[in-house]
């Protein structure tokens, strides 16, 4: 089934997407006229200040929020249907591991819900623990691990059921710079080996430029897209690529985009 879908085919398509929250202070335009196509195998970063709708857009794709206008399809079907087909794994800002389960038990949880056999659960847990370099930590409880390790475990959990799309909402926002660099490298490696489509929310410009094939710059009030940058950087990215001229140019364009988005509200 997976092989019939070619690389480069659109997996997430948003056309004229709108989302208005009704609050006590009147309506809030969280997303306004968002048009975006994400292709198979893309690594898309969403960057912008808080309130720009980057997380909201990701939550719409995950069917955790429901748009009030426009159309949004995931793998050609509605987000709700895609969710029922377990099209994506979602990694939140905090690891959100269940403290009463071991690391292996946490990774097993989505597999239990989806009805995988015990043997297959064990095999998948081994594989994803290896993938995020947590081999041997399966029997530990979450609170016995560092923050970075917990977040790695939550990524393993999102990978375990082999969804094509990985949605990550500021997954490393709470971690220090050194751990963050290391995990960014790991995510790139993971992306290269699994070929998944990744949607990644961040408010760090270097992180967005370092990771992405496509950078979506957003701005707030109303939440909208101000620029979409296709990165010319090669797929192989050592950490020191961040000192190259191309990298700095893209980072500059992102910064300009963010500034332009802020400009017209003053």
């Amino acid at each position, binding site marked *: 089934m997976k092989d019939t879908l070619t690389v480069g085919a659109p997996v997430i398509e948003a056309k004229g997407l709108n989302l208005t929250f009704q609050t006590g202070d009147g309506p809030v335009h969280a997303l306004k006229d968002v048009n975006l196509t994400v292709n198979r195998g893309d690594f898309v970063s969403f960057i912008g200040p808080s309130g720009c709708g980057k997380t909201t857009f990701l939550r719409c794709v995950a069917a955790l929020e429901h748009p009030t206008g426009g159309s949004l399809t995931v793998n050609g079907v509605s987000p709700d249907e895609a*969710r029922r087909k377990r099209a994506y794994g979602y990694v939140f800002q905090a690891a959100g591991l269940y403290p*009463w389960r071991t690391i292996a038990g946490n990774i097993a949880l989505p597999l239990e819900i989806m009805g995988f056999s015990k043997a297959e659960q064990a095999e998948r847990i081994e594989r994803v623990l290896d993938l995020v370099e947590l081999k041997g930590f399966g029997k530990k409880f979450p*609170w016995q691990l560092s923050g970075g390790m917990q977040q790695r475990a939550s990524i393993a959990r999102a990978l375990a059921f082999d969804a094509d799309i990985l949605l990550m909402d500021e997954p490393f926002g709470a971690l220090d710079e050194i751990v963050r660099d290391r995990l960014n490298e790991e995510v790139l490696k993971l992306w290269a080996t699994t070929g998944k489509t990744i949607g990644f929310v961040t408010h760090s410009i270097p992180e967005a430029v370092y990771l992405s094939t496509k950078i979506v710059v957003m701005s707030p009030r109303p939440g909208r897209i101000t620029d979409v940058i296709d990165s010319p950087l090669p797929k192989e990215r050592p950490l020191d690529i961040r000192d190259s001229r191309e990298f700095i140019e893209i980072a500059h364009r992102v910064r300009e985009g963010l500034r332009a988005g802020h400009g017209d509200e003053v």
Partner: protein
Amino acid sequence: MTWLGGAILFWMAAWAVNSAVARSDFGKGRAGRLFVPLLFGVTVLVLWEGVVRGFGVQPVILPAPSLIGAKIAGSLDVLWADFVQTVLKGALSGFVMGVGAAFVVAIAIDRVPFLQRGLLPIGNFVAALPIVGLAPILVMWFGFDWQSKAAVVVVMVFFPVLVNLVAGLQASERMQRDLMATWGAGYWQTLLKLRLPAAMPFFFNGLKIASTLALIGAIVAEFFGSPIYGMGFRISTEVGRLGLDMVWATIAVAALAGSMLYGAITVIERWVTFWHPSQRH
């Protein structure tokens, strides 16, 4: 006077031993942590004995611990029959039924928000009814035997367990519920795998409160009619006959039973909610 002096001397010596033990390495071990409160308990008993004998306190006002001990040893069969009637039949069966009912209703309330607005106020209302008013009515309804005592206990334990469990079911984090949604989990899967485990610390708080209420309820309900055995019956009749040593013996059994029930719940709690920050060591 020698009794009083001896008791005070023992008290001082035990105090010195205890503070030394508490500071030593032995005091930090498992045996030491048991030894310190045990010695403290013995000291209280010795002091009590000394004061009663030293001042010649009337047994009706306060019997000496040795007298109570002798009474317990001499009437084990009566105390055992009372214990079976009140604790095992009345309190424990009522506790199990009340907790079970609270569990079912808590999930019903959670499933149907309408019930939350309807049932919680009614539960609150019933909980506010005074036990001394409710007990005679329930004795009229369910007869003199343990069934009416169990009914009183059901009413008493139901509400604290219900309120705690309803609160506990809201205790899971939004993000964790979102995660369940992204995996396509249904209501029951989310309940079993996320919300009930997250509710357990609350549930056990409710159980602990309920365990003491259960014993009080079962004993007090016997004041309003019972067969000629049971701890509440024993206390009320022996007071009338000035058999205060028997009253104290019954109180000792009740305290022991209450502590054991509470202790058992604490042990199960530690096993179930080992993951909670309050239980981690």
